[in-house]
C-alpha cells in the first residue's frame, strides 16, 4: 500500500511539472481524480485492511486526494492562460423589442408638457351628443360642420333631454370643455386627448379617424397673454428650445379673439427657400386657440362676468408628422411592424 501511494504521489509530481496548458491540467484532473483514477482503486482496498491500517490509510488517501486537488487548482491558476481569439466581426444577434405607438407617445408627451404647468388630464367619451359637440360651443344649428358631410351621426335613439339632440361621433375634443365646465368650478386647467372622427376620404393627409388634444383654463384672471405663454412653453419643450411662435387672427365659433398658431421652422430656423419642411415659408401651422367665448362659458354654467378662460386644440398626427418627418398619415393606422419598430 505504502509503495503504491508513494509511487502515485511521485508520478503526479512529475506529471504536474510537465503540464503546460489548461487542457493538460484537465487531463491530469481526469487521470488522478476521475472515476477511473488509481486513487479510487486504492480507496476500494481500504475496507479489506486491518482495523488499524484502515484508519491510517483512509486518512492518508484523503490527504493525498486533497493535495492533488489543491495542486491542480494552484497549477491552473498559475498557468499563463492565453485566450483564444474570436472573430468579433461576426454579425450581432437580431433582437426584437416591444414598442409604443408613436401617436400615443406624442399625445402623452403633449399632455405631460401641460401637466407640468398644473393641468389635469380628463378624457372625454367618443360618443357625444349634438349639445356638447356643437351647441354648447356656440356652433349654430345651421353651421356647415353639423351637416352629415362633416360629422358622423349614430343610430342610437335620441336622449330624453330634447336639447341634447342626436348622438354622434365627436368631431373634435372640444366637447370635453363643456363636460368639465359643467361639472366643476373654476379654477379649471385641463388637457383632454383622444380620438375624433370626420367623414373625410382617406389619403396621404386625411383620415376619417384622427387624434386631438384639447386644453383649456378658466379662472378669474386668465388672459390672452397666459395663452401665449402656455403655448410658447409647449412649443419649446415639444419641438425645440429655440422655436418662436406666431399667432395669426382666425375664426372659431367657440373662442373670441381666436388665433391660429405657427411655430418657426425648426429645421431651417427661419427662411431657407428649399426647406423640405416649411417649403420656404419659415412657419409651420400647429394649432388653433383663443379666449373662450363668453357664450360658451354661460352655456356651461360659468359666469362670464366673473371668469375668463383660454382654450386651444391641436391635432396629434400633424405635430408627430412634423417632428418625425412622417409623410403619410396612413402609416399611423396600417401598423406595419417596419413602421412601429422605428419608435
Amino acid at each position, binding site marked *: 500500500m505504502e509503495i503504491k501511494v508513494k509511487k502515485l504521489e511521485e508520478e503526479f509530481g512529475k506529471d504536474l511539472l510537465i503540464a503546460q496548458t489548461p487542457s493538460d491540467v484537465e487531463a491530469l484532473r481526469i487521470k488522478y481524480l476521475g472515476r477511473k483514477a488509481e486513487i479510487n482503486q486504492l480507496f476500494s482496498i481500504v475496507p479489506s485492511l486491518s482495523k488499524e491500517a484502515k484508519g491510517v490509510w483512509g486518512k492518508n488517501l484523503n490527504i493525498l486526494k486533497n493535495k492533488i486537488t489543491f495542486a491542480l487548482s494552484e497549477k491552473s491558476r498559475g498557468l499563463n492562460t492565453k485566450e483564444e481569439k474570436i472573430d468579433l466581426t461576426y454579425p450581432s444577434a437580431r433582437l426584437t423589442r416591444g414598442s409604443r405607438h408613436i401617436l400615443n407617445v406624442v399625445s402623452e408627451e403633449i399632455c405631460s408638457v401641460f401637466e407640468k404647468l398644473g393641468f389635469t388630464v380628463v378624457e372625454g367619451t*367618443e360618443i357625444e351628443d349634438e349639445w356638447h359637440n356643437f351647441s354648447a360651443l356656440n356652433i349654430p344649428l345651421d353651421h356647415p360642420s353639423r351637416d352629415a358631410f362633416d360629422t358622423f351621426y349614430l343610430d342610437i335613439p335620441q336622449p330624453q333631454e330634447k336639447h341634447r339632440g342626436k348622438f354622434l361621433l365627436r368631431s373634435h375634443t372640444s366637447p370635453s370643455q363643456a363636460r368639465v365646465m359643467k361639472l366643476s368650478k373654476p379654477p379649471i386647467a385641463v388637457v383632454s386627448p383622444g*380620438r375624433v*372622427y370626420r367623414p373625410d376620404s382617406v389619403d396621404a393627409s386625411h383620415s376619417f379617424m384622427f387624434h386631438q388634444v384639447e386644453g383649456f383654463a378658466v379662472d378669474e384672471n386668465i388672459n390672452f397673454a397666459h395663452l*401665449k405663454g402656455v403655448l410658447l412653453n409647449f412649443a419649446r419643450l415639444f419641438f425645440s428650445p429655440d422655436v418662436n411662435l406666431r399667432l395669426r*387672427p382666425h375664426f372659431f365659433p367657440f373662442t373670441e379673439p381666436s388665433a391660429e398658431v405657427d411655430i418657426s421652422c425648426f429645421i431651417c430656423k427661419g427662411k431657407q427657400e428649399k426647406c423640405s419642411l416649411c417649403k420656404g415659408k419659415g412657419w409651420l401651422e400647429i394649432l388653433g386657440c383663443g379666449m373662450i367665448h363668453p357664450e360658451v362659458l354661460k352655456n356651461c354654467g360659468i359666469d362670464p362676468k366673473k371668469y375668463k378662460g383660454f382654450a386651444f386644440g391641436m391635432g396629434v398626427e400633424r405635430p408627430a408628422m412634423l417632428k418625425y418627418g412622417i409623410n403619410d398619415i396612413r402609416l399611423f393606422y396600417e*401598423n406595419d411592424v417596419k413602421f412601429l419598430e422605428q419608435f
Partner: protein
Amino acid sequence: MRFSLNFVKELIKVDLPAEELAQLLTMAGIEVEHFEKQGEDFLFDIEITSNRYDWLSIVGIAREISACLGERFSIKYPKIVKSPLIKDKQIKIESSADCPFYIARRIRGVKVSISPAHLKERITNCKINSINNVVDITNYCMLKWGNPLHSFDEDKIEGSIYVRRARDGEKFIGIDEKERILNSENLVIADEKKVIALAGVMGAKNTEVTEKTKNVLLEAAIFSPLRIRHSRRFAGIDTDSSYRFERQVFADYLEYASAQASQLIAEIAGAEFTGYLGAGKKPRVTDKKITLDLDKLNEYLGAEYQKSKVKSILVNLGFIVKESGKFKFLLSAPKHRFDITREVDVYEEISRIYGYDKIKERIPAIPHKVVKNEIYEFKKELRQQLSVLGLSEIITYSVEADEDLGKLGCNNLIKLVNPLRAQENSLRPSLSLGLIKTVSYNLNRSRANLRFFEIANVYSRQANGFCELPHLSIGLCEEEKDLFYLKGIIEEIFKFLNINDFEFKEKSFSFCANALEIFVNKKSAGFLGKLDEKIKNEFGLKKELYLSELDIASLCAAKKLKCYAQISPYPVVFRDISIAIHKDKHFSDVEKIIKEKEEYICDYRIIDTYQGKDLEKDFYAFSLRVFYQSKERTLTSEEVDQIHNAIRELLSKQEGIRLR
C-alpha cells in the same frame, strides 16, 4: 379666393411691396397662402374665415388694407336710378325666408361681344373666365362688391319671374350644359313655363346671354345662405356665386352692384337702361351699440394697448366711436359687420390690427389641485409594461364593417347613419377585428414575429342608450410561440398589477373554440384563445393567431399597491416527477394537488413532455420539476424527500393519473 392688387388699387393707394402686404394681411387675419407677379399686377391667394363674408369683395379687401395701414377708407358709390319701373312683368317670391329681396334691371339694345382688355384682365386675374362683355361686367361687379349678379337673355323669359322651390324631378340644364334633376331642397328662378336659374348658384342654358342676345334682364338678390348651401350640395355644384351667397351678402351693396353693372353694360355694350323692378324688402341691419372699457380690454388680453391707437384702429375699421368717460368708448359697429355683437368681438378687432405680437407671453399661476385621472394613468402604465413584455402597440380604426364584425359574432351594433363607405359603417364592440386585420396586413408583407397590443374604447348598445369602455387586446403570431406564451403574458400583467385573484376557465367563443375566459376578482374580465381555422381563412390569415381581450376597468379596479416580499436566502432544491395523465384529466388536476400541499413549494414547471407507444391508451406523459425552499432555514434532503413522496402518493391515488 384670389384677388388682384391692381383691382384694389382702383379704390385705394397701396405703395407697399407685395411681400410686405402679404405679411400685413396674414397677421391681420387674411391668410395669404401664395402671391405672384403677373404682368404689371400681383395676384394674391387668400384664405377667408367663415365669419368674414365681407372680405369676399375687393371693397372689403381694400377697406381692410386701409385699416392695416392706419388709414380711413372711403369709397365713391354709384348713382342708383330706379325708374322707370317695369310694368309688364312681376317678380313673385314664394317664401321670404328663402329670398327676402330680389331686384331686376332691364337693359335693352346690348351688343354682346368680347370684353375690352382692361375688363378681361381684372376678372381673369381673379380666376374667373372671360365669357363676353355682359357676363364679364356682372362678374366684375360681383368681385368688387361681393354681391353676385346674373344676366338673363330677356327675350327668352316667358312672362313673370318666380322665385320658388323646385318641384321634385324638375330638370335643370345649367350654362355648363349638364343636366341635373332637382328636388324641393333646390331654390330656383323660373318664368311661367320653365326653370331659368338655380337660384344663387348657376343660370340655365335656356336664357343664357349669347352673341345673339339683344335685351338683358339683370338679377340681383338676397338668398338664404342655408338654402343655397343645401341647394348647391344637392345639385353637386359649387360656384363663385354660391360661395358668396352661402356666406351672406351685404344688402346695402346690392343696389350699388346692380346699378354699376347696368351702367357699365350701357357704356361698354352700347345699351340703355330701361326699367327697374323689385320684390320683397331689403333686410334691415340694426345698429349695434357696444360699450368698450379700455381697462377691461387690457385685462382680458393681458396687454397695454394705448387709448389713442385703439381709437384710430376702430375708426379706420368703420366703427362710429364716441368717448364716454376717461377710459370708455361708445361704439356703433360698421353696418356690414354682422359678426360684431359684443365687447369681445371688438377686442378681437383691436388686437388683430394692433397685433397679437404686442402681447407679452406670461405663464398663469394655476392653483394646485390634486386630481389624478386614474384610468388615464393606468392605461399609460399598462402601455409601458406591455411594451416591456416585447409587444408593439398598434392603433386601429374604431369604425368597422358590420359584415366583418358579424364574422366574429358581434351583433346589435351601433351604426353610422351616414357612413362614408360600407367598410366603415359600425362602431366596434371588440378590438379583436382590428388586431386580426393588422396581423393579416403584416403577414401579407412577410413580416415575422408579430406581437401586438392595443388599448382603445369599444362601444355597445344598451337598453338605455350606449356603453363606451376601454379595452386591451393582445395578439401573438410568431414561430414557436403558442397559447401558453400568451397565457404567460396575461399572468405577467396580473403580476405587475399585483392581482392575485384571477382564474382561467375553459370556454368556447364563436371565433375561438379553444379559449379561456379570464376572471378577475371572480368576475369575467375577458378571454384568451386561439383563432379558429374558419375565421383565419375568412380573413386570409396564413398563420396561427393567439389573441386576448381584457376589460381595462376591471384590471384597474383589481390592481393593488405593491408590497415587497422577503427574498429567501436559503437554497432551492428540486425533485422531478414523471407523470402520465389520461386525456380526460387536466394539468390543473395535478396543479391543484401541488398547490394545496405545501408551503415549501416555491415553483414548479413542466420540463419535458412525452407521447409514445409504451404509454397506456389515451394517456400522455410529462416530467414535472417541483422546487422546494423555506423562508426560515435550509431544508434537509430528507425533509424534501418526505414532502415530495407525499405529493407522489397523493397524485398516484388520483384516477387517470399514473406515476412513471
